[in-house]
């Protein structure tokens, strides 16, 4: 380039430097890797007896593919590609993320460092004696979670919350089967429950009985009475529920379910509201899962990984997945505790090829160990205070109450999905929308404990500004984001799910 700086950044037609939201290259927000380069490598048949003939395949032709065609780019090009992609993402480090029931809170940075310790990188088939550190951490986390949930035994194997639900359902099924109650074929799920509850129960082979809410947004006890029978295997419940309301009748609910021989399952998605205040085990729940990536703030980038440990009351412990970890009675010659794997007596077997999402478990352990009793109790106190404060500041109608850590506002005459799009223009992540369906045009909001009063005021200002806007403005939103409103219909009508499909299409 010559020294002429007239087209330097700042000029209208200059594309370099950049306005992050508007930066466009070759007409795209960022070209696909495949549009930058595609290289075809021919595999070629080899001489099967040749052990070091560089370039030739060491396998005969008929066992190999002909070629492989993928992008072949330099490291600097890749660094820029992924940096640019990261700039087109909103994360919790970018701003508030009040997604109801998703509990998106700030993740302390140090947990990444402890998970990256070289001593954390071990193969799952290593002998017990050589991975005492890993087994000790697992045993300690099992113990922590048991105390926090009021549960007698914990498995860390499920790799996500929904996987935990499925394990809970399988454990319940095995328990009933063992007691000669295999005829129980129904699981009751409140209408307002997370969609995963329904799907996990169905995957477990159960008929799902949907339970309506009462006028106050809680479990309708009469409807529950009608739904319960000798066919009831379990009731799946989250408490506080997805409206942020505590199920005050939980003890009566537990008695009713237990009265017909059913089990009570706790969906841990909302546990963040209860830390140190109440425990599912004390409320009568027999099985629960923990979303350690939500409650204990371990990053779940882009949608995962998470981890969904399951806790149970002692009656159900023999059915948990294998293996579990425990401390042995004897100590090592140097006086250190010794840990071992063991299979519970009537185990349902495995629910993951190995032992689950280990690195997430390390982060969860570190988070809990950092906060301790005092920090955990304060986390839920601040989460509840923040939700109530934000609800109070909103001009939108917030039915029901009093709230714990989340609440559901109604967008009223506005379309909740459009409200969400418009909030993006105010630089904040919107709440969960249109769910639960009990509240019309629902804006399900969970600020979590990590937001300051100043941030909540800013969030409320965004909500309230949108509340005053007309439908036309909302429908045109967003206009200040990387990409403008995206056409969902054409994405579903003509699915193009790979760069190969894009090429076929053109």
């Amino acid at each position, binding site marked *: 380039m010559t020294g002429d700086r007239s087209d330097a950044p700042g000029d209208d037609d200059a594309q370099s430097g950049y306005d992050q939201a508007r930066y466009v290259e070759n007409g795209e927000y960022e070209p696909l890797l495949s549009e930058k380069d595609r290289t075809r490598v021919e*595999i070629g048949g080899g001489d099967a007896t040749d052990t070091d003939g560089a370039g030739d395949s060491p396998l005969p032709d008929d066992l190999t593919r002909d070629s492989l065609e993928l992008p072949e780019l330099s*490291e600097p090009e890749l660094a820029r590609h992924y940096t640019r992609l990261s700039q087109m993402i909103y*994360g919790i480090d970018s701003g508030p993320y009040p997604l109801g029931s998703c509990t998106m809170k700030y993740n302390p940075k140090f947990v990444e460092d402890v998970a990256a310790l070289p001593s954390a990188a071990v193969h799952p088939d290593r002998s017990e004696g050589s991975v005492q550190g890993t087994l000790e951490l697992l045993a300690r986390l099992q113990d922590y979670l048991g105390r926090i949930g009021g549960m007698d035994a914990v498995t860390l194997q499920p790799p996500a919350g929904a996987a935990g639900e499925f394990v809970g359902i399988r454990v319940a099924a095995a328990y009933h089967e063992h007691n000669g109650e295999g005829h129980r074929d129904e699981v009751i799920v409140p209408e307002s429950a997370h969609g995963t509850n329904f799907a996990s129960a*169905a995957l477990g082979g*159960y008929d799902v009985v949907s339970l309506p809410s009462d006028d106050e947004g809680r479990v309708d006890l009469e409807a529950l009475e009608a739904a319960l029978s000798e066919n009831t295997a379990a009731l799946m419940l989250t408490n506080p529920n997805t409206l942020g309301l505590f199920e005050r009748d939980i003890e009566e609910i537990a008695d009713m379910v237990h009265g017909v021989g059913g089990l009570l399952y706790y969906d841990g998605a909302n546990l963040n509201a209860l830390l140190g205040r109440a425990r599912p085990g004390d409320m009568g729940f027999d099985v629960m899962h923990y979303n350690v990536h939500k409650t204990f703030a371990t990053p779940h980038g*882009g949608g995962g990984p998470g981890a969904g440990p399951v806790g149970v009351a002692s009656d159900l412990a023999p059915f948990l997945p294998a293996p579990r970890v425990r401390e042995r009675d004897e100590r090592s010659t140097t006086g250190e505790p010794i840990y071992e794997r063991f299979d519970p007596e009537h185990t349902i077997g495995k629910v993951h090829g*190995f032992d689950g999402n*280990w690195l997430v478990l390390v982060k969860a352990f570190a988070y809990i160990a950092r906060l301790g009793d005092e920090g955990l109790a304060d*986390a839920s106190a601040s989460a509840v205070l923040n939700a109530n404060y934000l609800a109070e500041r909103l001009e939108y109608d917030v039915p029901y109450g009093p709230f714990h850590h989340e609440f559901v506002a109604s967008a009223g005459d506005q379309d909740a999905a459009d409200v969400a799009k418009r909030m993006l223009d105010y630089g904040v992540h919107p709440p969960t929308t249109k769910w639960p369906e009990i509240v019309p045009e629902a804006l399900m909001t969970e600020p979590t404990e990590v937001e300051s009063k100043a941030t909540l005021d800013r969030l409320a200002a965004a909500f309230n500004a949108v509340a005053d806007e007309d439908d036309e403005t909302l429908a045109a939103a967003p206009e200040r984001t990387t990409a403008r409103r*995206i056409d969902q219909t054409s994405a579903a009508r003509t699915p193009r799910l790979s760069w190969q499909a894009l090429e076929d299409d053109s």
Partner: protein
Amino acid sequence: MHGSHVTGSPYAPHTEEDRSAMLEAVDAASVEELFDIPATIEFEGEFDIDSRTERETRRLVRSILGRNDDQTELLGRGHYGYYVPSLVDHLADRSEFLTSYTQYQPEISQGFLQALFEYQSLLVELTGLEVANCSMYDAATALGEAATLAERVRATTGHRVLVPERLREERRSTLENYVAGTALTVDTYPADDGTVDLAGLEELVDEDVVMLYAENPTVRGTIEESLAEVGELAAANDALFTLGSDPIALALLERPADVGADVVVGDASVLGLPTSYGMGLGLFATREEFLRQVPGRLVGASEDATDRRAFTLTLQTREQHIRRERATSNICTNQAWVALRTAMHAAALGPSGMVELAKRDVRRARALAARLDDMVGIEAPVHDRYHLREFVAHVDQPARAVAGDLEDRGFAVHVVGDHEIQVCIAGVSDERIDRFAAALEEVTR
């Protein structure tokens, strides 16, 4: 901020002044008042977990994990410790990737959606199938999802799933749990010399079979030589042919689409993750005709209001948050960030790097087997087959004792029979392989 942070959680930012102002706004005298919990179930005990500083916590975790022995792992059987380039750690750890959630608002999630779209595209190229989702938990759960897919698309014609008799017990057990709530049952077919016993399989396949599962490479590290015949057998009986593999193997071995695979599952984290105690990334690819029955999330291309290409989650009507008990799967939180790492690692290698890595594995495994075979009291490999990255060796001495002696010298291998060990060279340097061979010679002498 006014005043100092006073609360117990270091990540809850309220000052005393903030807290008072907020309580006043909600008309409460204390935070306790906001909790609507009946006194009978209020928790008044202690967890008895100490609060620690960040530094103390790091020291605690370091000290616990410090009890792990530092060993050279020649372990495989479905989990591998390939070297992951620094590029992957540094870029995947950018906080926008690490701290974002599911892309329910695509306008502010374009970067992650595009990365996942590129990941799906990688799998489409590797498998030759038209559709790949953007992650399952691991190979075992992906296999379970393949079986429930088979039941949905072949529901009227049968109920048996056939898997190789030499399948990792953990995969078999996970599959059993996935099908426990369905009408499906799991049976095994014989393996000859580590690979499919075609004649034995043929006798077992009939119209009652809805899915036939094979792996390439097999759990014993051998490369299957009759996949096309297995595919034909499945097709002739209207069964889904599901193939288990991984991205490094797929860079070199027969393209699944070319041998008639309907579904490819496996662990994609051979790229992108170091050994992580079995944490994985389930890959799942299938044919376009099953698109609307696919489990998990899908990212699709679309356009935005300025007619520029943009990406979004699509076909969500299959998913649990919309379809509830009629969903194709219960998966919600998945392994998206691991998929990002896998895509980055693949991009860092490029096609030539991936193919070369797989070829080197074949050569290095073969060279090590030949070397062990020359030792007194060892035969390797026991299967007269091609191997990708691992193989089984016969040892005259009890295998458990051999493995124990190796462990004392800092090497971990699998024991897979009374006189059989399995050795994997994936991610192990040539220099360490040399030291391993010397140690093995010493302990079997």
